[in-house]
């Protein structure tokens, strides 16, 4: 296995995913197969090659700092599962 059950649980925790036992088993198997396939990138010697983060050669796109209308509080909260007094409401941290 390219990835262990414990590593899957660790990554799921990092990604805030609560997985069922059945999911952990299935994903361990599937992610192992996928990781073995993508590890192919390590076959190439790429020392000296610059990484590409973005396909266009753009840098420092500037814009005037001009105020413009934005969402109202009601619009911003329109899709919130829970709200109170103009804020998003969440369970205790």
């Amino acid at each position: 296995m390219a990835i262990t059950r414990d590593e899957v649980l660790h990554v799921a925790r990092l990604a805030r995913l609560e997985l069922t036992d059945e999911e952990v088993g299935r994903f361990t198997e599937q992610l192992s197969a996928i990781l073995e396939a993508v590890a192919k990138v390590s076959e190439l010697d790429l020392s000296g090659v610059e990484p590409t983060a973005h396909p266009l050669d753009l840098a420092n796109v500037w814009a005037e700092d001009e105020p413009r209308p934005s969402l109202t509080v009601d619009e911003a909260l329109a899709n919130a599962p829970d709200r109170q007094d103009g804020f998003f409401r969440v369970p205790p941290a």
Partner: protein
Amino acid sequence: MIDTLRLTAEEAFRLVERGEVSTAELHAAYLAAIAERDDELHAYLRTVDDPQGIPIAFKDLVSTRGVETTAGSRILAGYKPVFDATVATRCRESGMSLLGKTNMDEFAMGSSTENSGFGPTKNPWDPERVPGGSSGGSAAAVAGGLAPWALGSDTGGSVKQPASLCGIVGLRPTYGTVSRYGIVAFASSLDQIGPMTKTVRDNALLYRAIAGRDPMDSTTVELPEAVQVPDALDLKGLRVGVPKELNEAEGIEPGVNEAADRTIELCRELGAEVGETSLPRSVEFGLACYYLVAPAEASSNLARYDGVRYGLRVEGADVREMYEKTRDAGFGDEPKRRIMLGAYALSAGYYDAYYGQAQKVRTVIAQEHAAAFESFDVLVSPTSPTVAFRLGEKAENPLAMYLSDVLTIPSNMAGLPGLSIPCGLSEGLPVGFQLIGPQFSENVLFRTGHALERAIGFDVVPGRLR
């Protein structure tokens, strides 16, 4: 009588201009076709009543103010954006109005539309087969006469591949030419919105409407030249390159190869110079590169679905439990796989070996393509290694599904535009022909695609619906 199976958007505009048909009659005709055929096809997640312009369908990741937008995910069920995506605004400003929102693989992750949280879409050519994906709903809507045209999105091939499997025309534009403002994000350095149409001319018209710099998306740029709607019928002076690896890749069906070879021969007959070229590392390492870069970006983009601001919430004792229960209940398997894959590839100890290395492979892919374009104007290959496959055939094997995009991914990694046009049938199902150009070469792709389309004379109406 409006024949929605054959009517192009260009003809629809002409009929409306001449006063022969009203936009309300057009909408009524498409809604009637949807009522008749979409129970079977399930191309749409919902339709709307807005008969002000020429009808258009949007993939359900285009934000539409006041109209539910789910990206095919249960985690966004019920979400009604409070603003319009720039492409939606531009379509309206060009005389179009929304007909409906189309089905898709959840968060655009998939190649068959079977990963939708709302059930799969069927291929209009054969409802036992997939329409491709992730823009399968848009492709099926256009091919099935349920929309004159549609918008899809393409990250690894999600416009080109379903266009190929449904026998329509699909453009993945040069990265940065179409605004992503208001598009539900998957992998931001790859996502592009693209037109899906019955003809190359319609494709150019729709691209012209949506392309260009948008101050709301700082990764967009002005087009270096205006979009030209093509009318030339020959390919004189065009240099067509046939990358060996893209045309001889393992898994390409013989019938697909035959149709593509015939089309390459047709390029010659139409006056193009045709020669062989090579993209060895792009094809061999493209898929692995994509499945590191795209999940890494997805794991970051999908962090926003936390049950706080929009979409689903599953209650928990504290906020962390609420996050975890919400995300487990709301995401389907494919987003979960990719989020975890991305988080793993980015994590300490693995970053250099996986994500860092993939970013360097991306540079190599861009360089190989640039070298090929020193000798050729257009590179060609099949779009998909196979015709439409059966529902369920690859559902249990994520890696087999990923291979559906092996021919579209390499050029996507380099930010290059690609056009898929139908070039014939294999086993009674459409085969797509992929044209790849340098960045900002859409006009060349349209010209080439149009000349080939006229010479091929492909009938876009699925055989069983004629």
